[in-house]
């Protein structure tokens, strides 16, 4: 299986390390042609405004949307979730920095698809609304923090900052 990680900015190395443990072929994606032949793409954590602008400069957005139409799975963590909402890849509405600044960032545990996993929220967004076809995979209090819609997956937290590979494994199943 071939999985890409958008290599513009943010937690790229952390996702790379997780995928290496899972024995998949990994491609670091900077240019539209890097998307060729991928079964899944991870949009890492980072600054969504920065990543969005640089995706524009690199001409990546159009190609990404086309690849998704042809069946590529996408998983966005934090900033990646915001970008997926902005690009219309998943039917959710998000609010950026919804918990406040860095001093409001927090660590906790959530039940993800029935498994308890550590969850790190850094200047995290909130999912305010979602479409009918979206499935909630995890909640923190009343907030929806992980959603799947067909082959699209978002988490508002950062599984890549922990040693727990549950969400990475889950994404590989979605993509496979």
């Amino acid at each position, binding site marked *: 299986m071939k999985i890409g990680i958008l*290599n*513009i900015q943010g*937690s790229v190395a952390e996702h790379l390390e997780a995928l290496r443990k899972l024995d998949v072929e990994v491609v670091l994606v900077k240019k539209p042609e890097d998307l060729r032949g991928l079964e899944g793409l991870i949009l890492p954590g980072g*600054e969504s405004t920065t990543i969005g*602008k640089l995706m524009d400069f690199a001409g990546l957005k159009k190609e990404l949307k086309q690849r998704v139409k042809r069946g590529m799975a996408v998983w966005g963590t934090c900033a990646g979730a915001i970008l997926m909402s902005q690009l219309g890849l998943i039917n959710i509405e998000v609010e950026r920095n919804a918990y406040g600044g860095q001093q409001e960032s927090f660590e*906790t545990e959530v039940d993800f698809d029935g498994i308890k996993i550590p969850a*790190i929220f*850094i200047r995290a967004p909130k999912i305010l609304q979602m479409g009918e076809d979206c499935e909630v995979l995890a909640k923190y209090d009343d907030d929806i923090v992980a959603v799947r819609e067909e082959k699209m997956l978002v988490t508002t937290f950062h599984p890549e900052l922990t040693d727990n590979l549950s969400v990475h494994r889950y994404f590989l199943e979605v993509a496979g």
Partner: protein
Amino acid sequence: MAVKKNTPTLKKGLAQMLKGGVIMDVVDAKQAKIAEDAGAVAVMALERVPSDIRRDGGVARMSDPKMITEIMATVTIPVMAKVRIGHFVEAQILESLGVDYIDESEVLTPADEQYHVDKSQFKAPFVCGARNLGEALRRIDEGAAMIRTKGEAGTGNVVEAVRHMRSINEDIEALKGMKEAGLKKYAKEERVPLALVKETRDLGRLKVVNFAAGGIATPADAGLMMQLGCDGIFVGSGIFKSSDPTAMAKAIVEATLNYDDPAMLARCSAGLGKAMESLEIETLETRYSERGW
């Protein structure tokens, strides 16, 4: 379920989200907006950029909280601000404003000749400058969640940032060849815990994100620092003291992304107008990098 805030993981984690990005010095909300629009991952709010601090002389202090909060209200990217070395009350003030990162910076006039701020006591994360591995490890041991090279701020001269990045890299390489006794001696000489030295050796890098700072003035400078292995770039005077800040800001962001692609770097470097006024290191009256220890 238990909820924890302001842990080392969270402090360090925000810096991990900034990797591969450019953090720009800004002096007002208008500049902050230009920086954000150009693709900066964060802004450093300060009253005067380092080249002006150098020109004006006198004591350089924490910026006016009014200016900092205006910038925080203007942009959605993280906002950092500087305190003087050892000035823990300036740090308390910035923390109460809710800034995302505090830079305990040699660019401001040091407030304490003996102690850096005990950063582990703060909720807000800290970034600190370093010239070599020992200095970086001392800051990490005090609680810094991010390191940057000191370089020589306000000069537009990248030579010191290069020296500091190479020095950190070489010191880490040297650790890899050391036996137990050598590691112990190093830890003792540098006044840092042996466990931290060993952790750094095992990782083959600093345990926190390490940016380049101090003298970066062009897209090529950003590419150079990235190729030397830093995680991202701080640009101080280099943006808003250039002849076309909007173009320079965007160019340095793109160069940081495409640091290993000379053709892209050529494109980023073209038609930018004049870079900031620059200075030879030998002619400086004050070397900021010699502040702190």
